């Protein structure tokens, strides 16, 4: 089997697939990426036994057919160092040859037949979301997941699929991120009674596979897995088992104050306040006064800080203690110049940070026990 491809295209596809390859696994074969060639096309396949990924390599020439296993880290290293534009791969009985310019590599290969299969996107009924929207939604939720949780299935993002809109929700029980965007359907996909939870690793891979955000993502849901296709990449993932909490109950219906904020100055103040915190004392006091927000932090043996900024607030004075990392996580995924609404209830209740494009972030304060 022989294959000629563009170095840049091959490298990009290989890097995408390498994201799924497990770094630690008891099944050594999974440390490889499988190359499948046939009908003038080439596909790279990775699998970590929960998540599988297929990625087409564009701009290839081949009139043969066959498959091979490529040792991931070794091939990545090779591709990183090559300089010529064209790379030729040849698979003989027991080895894979990579040739490029004056360089030649012969890598011993395991039998590709032993590589566990990865689903293809075969569905006729599926949900459709613009790639750019899905990418943004994943970025706005994935940081709030919690793989350590034992009580709930919080190690992933809950995906609520509907005929007209898609909602993603993630929480580590200290804060919650919920984002909604318009979606559509092709055919008649079944709307699931219980919304699936997709592992955060799979969501991260989907986010990366969406590339520059052109095109659409197609989502097909099955009993135990979900398959997402975008352009030349398909990702199939098992679902997170277990219960996702009913997050709607913890998003308040009403608030006592709403303050309009701009991301950049607030983010700057929060970043400053984070400097004088420690592992042991995370809390920063957010002191809301008329026209002024003051962030007070202090940590034993380190010192203290006081950061003030003007805000449009004229409610009663109130001090809420937050872990500033949770506030910063939200601000990080917004554009510096954009606006949001900071909604408060009381000094020891949750606060919500809400944008005008259907993104809601709820964060719990630190407070005295009982």
């Amino acid at each position, binding site marked *: 089997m022989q294959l000629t491809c563009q170095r840049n295209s091959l490298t990009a596809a290989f890097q995408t697939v390498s994201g799924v390859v497990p770094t630690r696994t008891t099944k050594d074969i999974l440390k490889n990426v499988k190359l499948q060639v046939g009908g003038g096309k080439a596909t790279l396949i990775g699998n970590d036994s929960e998540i599988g990924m297929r990625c087409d390599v564009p701009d290839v020439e081949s009139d043969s057919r066959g498959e091979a296993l490529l040792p991931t880290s070794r091939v990545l290293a090779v591709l990183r160092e090559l300089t010529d534009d064209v790379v030729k791969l040849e698979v003989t009985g027991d080895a894979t040859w990579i040739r490029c310019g004056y360089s030649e590599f012969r890598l011993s290969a395991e039998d590709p037949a032993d590589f566990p299969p990865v689903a293809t996107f075969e569905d006729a009924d599926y949900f459709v979301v613009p790639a750019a929207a899905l990418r943004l939604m994943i970025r706005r939720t994935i940081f709030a997941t919690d793989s*350590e949780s034992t*009580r*709930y299935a919080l190690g992933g993002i809950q995906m609520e699929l509907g005929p007209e809109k898609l909602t993603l929700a993630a*929480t580590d*029980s*200290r*804060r*919650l991120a919920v984002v909604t965007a318009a979606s559509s359907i092709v055919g008649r996909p079944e709307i699931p009674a219980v919304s699936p939870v997709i592992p955060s690793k799979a969501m991260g891979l989907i986010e990366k596979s969406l590339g520059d955000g052109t095109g659409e993502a197609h989502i097909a849901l099955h009993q135990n897995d979900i398959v997402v296709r975008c352009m030349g990449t398909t990702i199939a993932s098992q679902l997170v088992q277990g219960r996702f*909490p009913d*997050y709607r109950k*913890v998003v308040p219906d009403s608030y006592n104050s709403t303050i309009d904020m701009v991301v950049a100055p607030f983010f700057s103040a929060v970043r400053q306040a984070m400097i004088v915190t420690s*592992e*042991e*004392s*995370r*809390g920063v006091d957010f002191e809301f006064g008329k026209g002024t927000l003051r962030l007070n932090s202090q940590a*034993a043996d380190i010192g203290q800080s006081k950061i003030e900024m003007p805000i449009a607030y004229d409610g009663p004075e109130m001090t809420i*203690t937050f*872990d500033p990392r949770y506030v910063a996580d939200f601000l990080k995924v917004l554009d510096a110049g954009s606006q949001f609404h900071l909604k408060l209830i009381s000094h*020891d209740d*949750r606060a919500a940070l809400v944008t005008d494009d259907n993104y809601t972030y*709820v964060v*719990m*304060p*630190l*407070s*005295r*026990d*009982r």
Partner: protein
Amino acid sequence: MILHVDMDAFYASVEERENPSLVGKPVIVGGSAESRGVVAAANYEARKFGVHSAMASGRARRLCPHAVVIKPRIDYYASVSRQIRDIFEQFTPLVEPLSLDEAFLDVTGSESLFGSSADIGRQIKQRIRAELKLTASVGVATNKFVAKIASALKKPDGFVVVESGDIQAFLDPLPVGKLWGVGKVTGAVFEQLQIRTIGQLRQMPLAKLTELFGASGEHYWQLAHGIDDRRVVPDREAKSISNETTFAEDIADIEVLRAWLVELVEQVARRLRRHDLKGRTVELKVRFADFQTITRSMTLAKPTSITQELLEAGVELLTKRLPSRHQPIRLLGFGVSKLDGSGKSQQTLFDQPDQARQQELDRVADQITEKFGKRAIRRGTGIE
């Protein structure tokens, strides 16, 4: 100079303040059947009949059948205790609370602001009386040991100042039992030697005392000479809280060690909670039969003062992190560091029933311990 401030019949006085009709009557706090039949506190009227705290309630009732018996309200006493501490902290940041009703204050640096140490002691007494309608006994001395004896000397409403030149004259006539660390056993030895007062003890040479009591001998010698170098350590300054115990006989049985660990963890966790602290790093200290000493530590995901969480970490260190084959153990210690004194913790969106239950369990156990001593309630796995 050091102040020792000790509230007079604290629980009972708070109850009298809340209900003035009790004044002049004997009052027993606790001692009802529900509170396991032990007196938590008695006012001075009741004490005239021989009633004292930790006495069995049946006996207390026989001694003083007409006493008013009140159910303890530890939460409320704790809030009053915080008000008292607020007064202390207006005079000095160096406040070391010993319990709800007792604290050491180092006022050395406050004299230029508020007057002499004796003046500060008087002002504190006065403000507690004026603002909280309660009385305190205050001892003023150059060190903790003497200040504590001084505060007890003229209770209630006592005020005793011991200047540095007067320490010997002050201590000499007191019974040796007043020395910190002298209990029944040591007391019996002193009795045999016909040593009854601190003055008599002071006459003994240091060598003789160390011969009799080992390292403790030097401790008694120092106290008898009025020497006590212990600093006043405000809780928020403490870097770690730990507890250790040396066994009478070396222990090899892991289950027995685990039971001892439960005791150590309980005590450390209680101290953390009493001071509103949470710790993030737990450390186990082990001394083997050959005196080789090792420590093993681990860092938790978040700071905690929940006994169960600290215990799980301690058990993991004990069962998984010691050398697989080791000698019997002569000393076991447990400590918590990386302390968070903010008193605040991250709240969660969804209920954490396990955690809430453990916190409630700790809270109730602490109250019982506070009232009736640490033998009153124990984990089922602890040492009998």
